[in-house]
């Protein structure tokens, strides 16, 4: 199977502190890949380096066979991104940010349909800052989907969502995967990873602790579920 994302030997330091250390990973097309780690493990820096919003010190990155720093315009027609922060101009209404984002792409989706599917249609004229956490998160996913991308990056997508909203987001991601979208997500919810991800990688202080399928990680750590595996990995490494 072809790879949608390939990273090899990625290293990034800030002021002498190594945020990501020799990270390598491959994400197969049409799969969901999870990047795990505690807060500050280097997940967001990894995403930044993969997307080219930060320049890695060393290492190679390709997304859909392109160098993200060199082929920005063509690539981001096919790659959707949701960052941890909700980065919108203050005071913008949901409808306005949807229209603006819609105008960025050559083949955008019908956002009103998706808004309806998310149960957000009645909130169109509400300011983004006045939405609830769950509503805002769903909006961010919708915006990442806007260009009908082949690859989607989602940084901490369900943080701050109630269990019901999280299930809803999972269903959306599974549907996306069925239509042939590759998903790269970061998370610190282990049940999420267990349910969604085909493959995962656990990061600690910028180092790869383990990677593989959920079964492989469980077998390798001798644990029954990802919660245990994660704790085993993080604490085992300390001892």
């Amino acid at each position, binding site marked *: 199977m072809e790879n949608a994302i390939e990273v090899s030997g990625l290293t990034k330091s800030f002021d002498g502190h190594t945020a990501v250390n020799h990270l390598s990973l491959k994400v197969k097309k049409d799969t969901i890949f999870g990047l795990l780690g505690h807060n500050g493990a280097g997940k967001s820096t990894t995403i930044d380096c993969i997307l080219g919003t930060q320049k890695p010190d060393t290492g190679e990155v390709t997304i859909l066979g392109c160098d993200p720093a060199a082929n920005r315009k063509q690539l981001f027609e096919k790659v959707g991104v949701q960052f941890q922060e909700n980065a919108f101009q*203050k005071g913008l209404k949901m409808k306005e940010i949807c229209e603006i984002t819609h105008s960025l792409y050559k083949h955008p989706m019908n956002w009103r349909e998706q808004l309806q599917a998310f149960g957000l249609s009645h909130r169109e004229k509400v300011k983004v800052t006045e939405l609830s956490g769950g509503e805002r998160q769903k909006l961010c996913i919708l915006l990442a989907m806007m260009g009908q991308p082949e690859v989607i990056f989602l940084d901490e997508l369900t943080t701050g969502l109630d269990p019901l909203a999280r299930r809803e987001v999972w269903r959306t991601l599974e549907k996306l995967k069925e239509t042939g979208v590759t998903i790269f997500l970061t998370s610190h919810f282990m049940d999420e990873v267990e349910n969604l991800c085909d493959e995962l990688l656990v990061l600690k202080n910028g180092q790869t602790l383990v990677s593989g399928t959920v079964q492989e990680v469980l077998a390798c750590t001798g644990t029954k579920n990802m919660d245990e595996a994660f704790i085993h990995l993080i604490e085992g490494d300390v001892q």
Partner: protein
Amino acid sequence: MNTFWLLYKAEIKLSFREMSSVIFGLILPAVLMALMGMFAYSNEELNLSFAAIATIGLCATGLMSLPLSLSSYREQKVLKRYKVTPISPMILLFAHVSYCFSLSISSMLMVFAVAKFGYGMNFIGSPLKFIAGYLLVMAAIHSIGLIIASLSPSEKTTGAISSALYFPMFLLSGATIPFEIMPSFLQSIVKIFPLTHGIELLKGIALNQLANLTFSLTVLILTAIVCLIISIKFFKWE
């Protein structure tokens, strides 16, 4: 192009939702012109007041709105978000600058309307020259705003720098208190403000007294060019 238009419209809507640019850039100069019109005893004085008050709008957008918005867009990672889309975040920057220019020019036209229809001002100089001069002053002041946006590390610092530049220029450059009534030592101090030269230029054009404007003209052109170069060199998207 469609994106630019949507962003431009959004910037206008946002400014009316937030109101501070509208108050400082549109309402305040119109009210001030209405007040100063009452004290003007001749058509010359009306022309001078108009030329000075017409610059308040461009200061509000150039020294306040432009640096504050750009700093906020950087701090809130709005610019970064556009970096992972097919368009350049530059389009958002252009949209905001275009909004600033639109508001400045509307403000000047409103002040003109108050002077003309409220007090029967008869414009003495050449309207075309006045517009050209106005655009130059607008470009120079917005370049200063861009430098603040480029060099300031955070939104809060930008707020402080902007206020520290805006209020002295607003009060002392002759936009509110006429330059002519200031004591001579103050006159020589406030000459360091580019806006003082901007107002001098516009007053000269308004009265059709074009001699002795070369120095002000040079200051403004240099300010515009130098500030623009510095801000482009130091601008950070994140």
